């Protein structure tokens, strides 16, 4: 496992960090980018997000999730990178990539990884609104 493919970075994720995932044996690469939206789920105008992470345990959780994906979907390489700090609208907050010989496993592994990351990784998100208010959001 290439440990550098699982990380927490300060500031927006550069999706090109995922390019290291490619290899000559893998024909399908599925990538998920989570981008800061200009509107919250309840319709408020959002100017940005702030993320915090319990960093070492979060990266260990990424590695655990990747191992589970390999056990479920077969030979697949994963990369998971999450931002912390202040992000503007349009910035990439999280990037997940899955490479496999065939696309079906890559799609399944990528989706599994982002779903589990959101459910389990010790990462927190605060929405900052147009009026100056802000609020911590949980997935629960």
């Amino acid at each position, binding site marked *: 496992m290439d440990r550098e493919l699982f990380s927490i970075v300060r500031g927006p994720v550069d999706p090109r960090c995922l390019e290291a995932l490619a290899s000559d044996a893998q024909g399908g690469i599925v990538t998920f980018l*989570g981008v800061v939206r200009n509107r919250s789920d309840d319709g408020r105008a959002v100017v940005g997000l702030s*993320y*915090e*992470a*319990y960093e*070492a*345990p*979060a990266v*260990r959780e990424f590695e655990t999730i990747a191992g589970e994906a390999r056990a479920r979907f077969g030979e697949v390489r994963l990369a998971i990178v*999450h931002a912390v700090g202040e992000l503007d609208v349009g910035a990439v*907050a*999280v990037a997940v990539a899955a490479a496999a010989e065939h696309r079906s496993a890559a799609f399944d592994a990528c989706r599994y990884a*982002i779903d589990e*990351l*959101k*459910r*389990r*990784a*010790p*990462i*927190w*998100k*605060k929405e900052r609104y147009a009026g100056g208010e802000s609020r*911590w*959001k*949980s*997935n*629960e």
Partner: protein
Amino acid sequence: MNVRVVAFASVREILESSPRSLALPRGARVGEAWSALERLFPALCAHRTSVRIARNGRIVSLEESLLDGDELALLPPVGGG
């Protein structure tokens, strides 16, 4: 003895600074650490049922015994991605 307390998100804001040191009687359990923090920061009370606590990176119950130098992490419900 002293433990190191780290907190995140809404709970970090209540603690004013993170990490912070917390003095406890030798042999104290996680529950006593939480109670000591609640006395210092009464607003923590509202988070009592939702926060999970990790000792040195592993989720533990309030019954777990602490040792000098342990790290306690206070983890509100997550919301990444």
